[in-house]
């Protein structure tokens, strides 16, 4: 049963990654693209967690944590660049 | 003396817990090293937060967090239903202006974070004098009802905790 649920979850997360990528391509403006990238980062975290359950190891959690941190910082950096034209004032 | 050695007791506890979670085991060595970090880091960084307001009632803060968690669960299902089953034509996205009674930046930050995390509303901006919050609601016929709910449910409780 877990295996079925896992496969469903893999499919759903992969599909949502594709949908977010579609929004990234479509735009239409910068805010939407930043949002799409942010969503893709969160979906990637979800994917890594699923992989961790599937393979039964703990080593993926550090990477999930690091991707969460990098994703947050890069989202803020891009949004700030759009707002001010500069990241560090 | 106590204020210099232990400037931020809650942060000390939080740092020790975070260290134990990072190492992912609870042994004597981990806890002791976590406490050492928890004691050193607040002393080193104390200069960077001079006007930190005291959290008056930690228990109330805990019950507030539980209420918010529950609201996140309930409202997430509501937003999922809106997204899946409501067509774009029938949706009424609306801007809501929430006048603030809170004064401290920490309390306003908590309120804005709560508004964003509870689905259906996103806090977008603060007015330049810090007296009003701009909130975007996904599906609200009546902006005043949203404003009243935010003031009733969250702001009143935050005011009790921080002020």
């Amino acid at each position, binding site marked *: 049963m877990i295996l079925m649920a896992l496969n469903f979850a893999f499919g759903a997360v992969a599909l949502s990654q594709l949908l977010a990528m579609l929004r990234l391509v479509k735009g239409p403006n910068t*805010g939407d693209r930043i949002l799409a990238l942010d969503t893709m980062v969160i979906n990637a*975290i979800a994917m890594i*967690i699923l992989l961790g359950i599937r393979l039964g190891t703990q080593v993926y959690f550090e990477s999930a944590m690091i991707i969460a941190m990098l994703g947050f910082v890069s989202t803020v950096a891009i949004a700030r660049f*759009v707002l001010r034209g500069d990241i560090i004032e | 003396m106590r204020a210099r050695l232990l400037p931020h007791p809650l942060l000390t506890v939080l740092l020790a817990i975070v260290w134990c979670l990072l190492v992912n085991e609870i042994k004597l060595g981990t806890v002791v090293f976590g406490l050492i970090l928890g004691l050193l880091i607040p002393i080193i960084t104390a200069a960077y937060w001079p006007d930190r307001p005291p959290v008056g009632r930690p228990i109330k803060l805990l019950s507030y967090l539980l209420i918010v968690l529950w609201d996140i669960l309930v409202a997430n299902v509501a937003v999922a239903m809106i997204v899946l089953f409501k067509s774009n034509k029938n949706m009424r996205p609306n*801007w809501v202006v929430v006048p603030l009674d809170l004064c401290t930046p920490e309390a306003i930050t908590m309120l804005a974070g709560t508004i964003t*995390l509870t689905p259906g509303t996103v806090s977008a901006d603060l007015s330049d004098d810090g*007296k009003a919050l701009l909130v975007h609601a996904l599906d609200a016929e009546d902006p005043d009802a949203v404003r009243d709910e935010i003031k009733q449910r969250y702001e009143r409780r935050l005011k009790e905790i921080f002020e």
Partner: protein
Amino acid sequence: MISLSDLGIISEIIISALLVIGAFFVLVGSIGLLKLDNAMSRLHAPTKATTLGVGALLMASMTYAFATRDGSMHEILVMAFLFATAPISGNFIAKANMHRLRGKKDLPPPPDDHVWGTYSDT
């Protein structure tokens, strides 16, 4: 790899339910991102649905670790980090959207002749 024999039926049901719920909310977040038709509405779906979705997946992972090995807790850290940062990145994206709306009529002004923080010069 998963060995299914050493799991009780109850923990199996709990883990499967959490996995399905989490995947469902992640998917709803992305559907909302694609479906909704104006920039501010689009902000709603992903910032929250994905937080709850990833939260449920992390709970599933934690339950699985407790059912098979001697347990692990650092999922809580990822969860706390996501819950703490989601409002902040959402707020920054909202500000980036407001930057584009500058001077439009549909934005209500704040009371007492002030302006919104994004538009003030200081």
